[in-house]
């Protein structure tokens, strides 16, 4: 069956990017440009699909209503930058190169590069099952990254930018400090390299997972029910994580897609009902400032934590 997004990316590549690269004498970047086209199309589809589903939900059953929504505009910028722009391509290229270098080196030395399908050969050919296992492992790893980012003061200084939003909507998922994103990328990259995640095989499924993450931030009175909330992270469940009383180390519900890790490691709280969001410990720039002001705010906070640490030492 044709993959329509892949075909759109191919069309974009053939009709726009290749003629441009050819005219500029940059055809050596043609393969990478094709990769970017794929990321851009899937990113755009992510944004449009999220918009088409989450926006009606937010209008239908809003938790909060705001007169001034300017603070949300910055979150839209974060989303476009993170999903359609050059950032996903850079991270993909870096990850791909790291995977090539590491696995090639391992093969050269007569060992077998780590891959689920090599550990469990029966998985070869069962791509959906393989992807599901990879997704569960990565979600668990992300739970611990997220939880640690709340525990370490210097890391929380960066991660607090994500929590500063008082007008949390589905756009807020990608609202992250660049350094926080970088650490998350390295964390994710190391785990993904260790288990041999295939970077380009499952774009549609990645799209679905990213949608769940966006939905969990929606300003919508949506719960998945007693059972559903224990299977997938819902807006109600994740909102408790962003609550004003749950900033920093005192937070709960760290899971991104699956609430299982919170239940297993005793950080789940299913009792909180659509609490107000924000980080009372942060400054106003992190909450309502421009993209640049938010980035500066995170750096200032990081610097003050590091300086305090030095003084204490």
């Amino acid at each position, binding site marked *: 069956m044709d993959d329509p997004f892949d075909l759109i990316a191919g069309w974009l590549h053939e009709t726009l990017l290749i003629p441009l690269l050819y005219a500029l004498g940059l*055809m050596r970047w043609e393969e990478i440009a*094709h990769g970017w086209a794929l990321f851009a199309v899937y990113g755009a589809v992510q944004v449009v699909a999220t918009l088409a589903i989450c926006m009606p939900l937010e209008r239908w059953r809003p938790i909060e209503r705001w007169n001034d929504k300017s603070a949300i505009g910055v979150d839209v910028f974060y989303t476009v930058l993170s999903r359609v722009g050059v950032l996903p391509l850079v991270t993909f290229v870096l990850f791909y*190169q790291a995977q090539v*270098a590491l*696995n090639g080196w391992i*093969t050269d030395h007569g060992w077998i590069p780590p*891959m689920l*399908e090599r550990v469990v050969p029966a998985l*070869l050919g069962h791509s959906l099952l393989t992807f599901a296992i990879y997704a569960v492992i990565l979600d668990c790893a992300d739970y611990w990254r997220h939880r640690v980012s709340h525990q370490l003061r210097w890391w929380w200084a960066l991660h607090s930018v994500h929590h500063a939003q008082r007008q949390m909507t589905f756009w807020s998922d990608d609202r992250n400090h660049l350094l926080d994103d970088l650490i998350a990328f390295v964390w994710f990259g190391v785990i993904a390299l260790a288990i041999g995640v295939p970077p380009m095989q499952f774009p549609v499924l990645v799209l679905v997972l990213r949608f769940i993450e966006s939905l969990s931030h929606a300003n919508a009175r949506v719960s998945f029910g007693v059972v559903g909330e224990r299977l997938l992270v819902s807006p109600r469940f994740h909102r408790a994580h962003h609550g004003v009383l749950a900033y920093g180390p005192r937070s709960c519900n760290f899971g991104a897609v699956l609430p299982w890790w919170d239940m297993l490691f005793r950080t789940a709280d299913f009792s909180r009902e659509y609490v107000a969001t924000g980080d009372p410990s942060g400054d106003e720039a992190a909450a309502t400032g421009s993209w640049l002001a938010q980035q500066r705010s995170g750096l200032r906070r990081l610097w003050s934590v590091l300086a305090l640490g030095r003084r204490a030492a």
Partner: protein
Amino acid sequence: MRFRIGIVVILMLTLTLLRHGVSSALAGGLAFVVNSNSASISVIDMSTRKELRRIPTLREPHHLMLSPDGKSLLVGDTAGNQIMFLDPATGDVQRRVAVADPYQLGFSPDGKFLVVNGLARNQIDVYEPATMTLIKRFPAASTPSHLAFSPDSRTVFVSLQGSDKLTAIDLTSMNPSWTEPVGPTPAGVLWLHGKVLVADMGDDYVAVVDPASGHVVDKLVTGKGAHNLFLSPDNRIVWVNNRAGGTTTAVDAETMKVLRSYSIPGGPDDIAFAPNGDLWITRRFAEKVAILHPETGDFETIDVGRSPHGIWLNPAARGP
């Protein structure tokens, strides 16, 4: 009497159907198409144009090559760091060998060497095919992509796509002979009548290179983004796929004159030749294979996986 006629008619119909069925199965033949972004190999019945099945690979396969004894079809899985050996008659996996970044593969004409280009790792590896022992590795900056051998098996020529150069390696002494500029973004390489032809994807021509010196002695304009080139089985036509132009160009192998260009949109890449004269062409950005009928210029399409790249036909195969 009516009853007997009925039996005869039924028998004749049955025989006709059986004969048709048997001849279809025998006339089949298999096409193997490597889907780079789907991590699979499509196995296609050449007569019905139907995809019979997909063979899963580990990560990112690109090219394939028949072993000199014809007993194995080798498929290089770059990100999987593995060469898969398939039964060319059925597609069944015979064995898997760990090889770092196998992008393009080629056996020397005498069968003594298997050369493997590591495009992402900037290396050219020479293996002893029987034992798959690495004889020597040549660092090759940058992105070694396609390759061709001299007919005497002494030299392998490899295009260095990222550095606008072609490199020649002497397989007798196992030393590089020369590395020379041949045009922007060189890709496909072909030996023809004592010269080396190199498709320059950054321009619209095929460079004609002197194999002794590496100097470009002529340029043949074929189309924008000349990417890959293949010699027809009867040695009469060089077929060139032009990536940016979306065309396939036929060049007279004797006179080196362009005969005709065909529009093949969707990133034409590799070509395999069918016994009836059709060209099976992978279209990288269209998830399709085009079957070009050169006489008319029409082409049929077959759906395959994402980013179809390498292709190989076995008209004699009866299928799995």
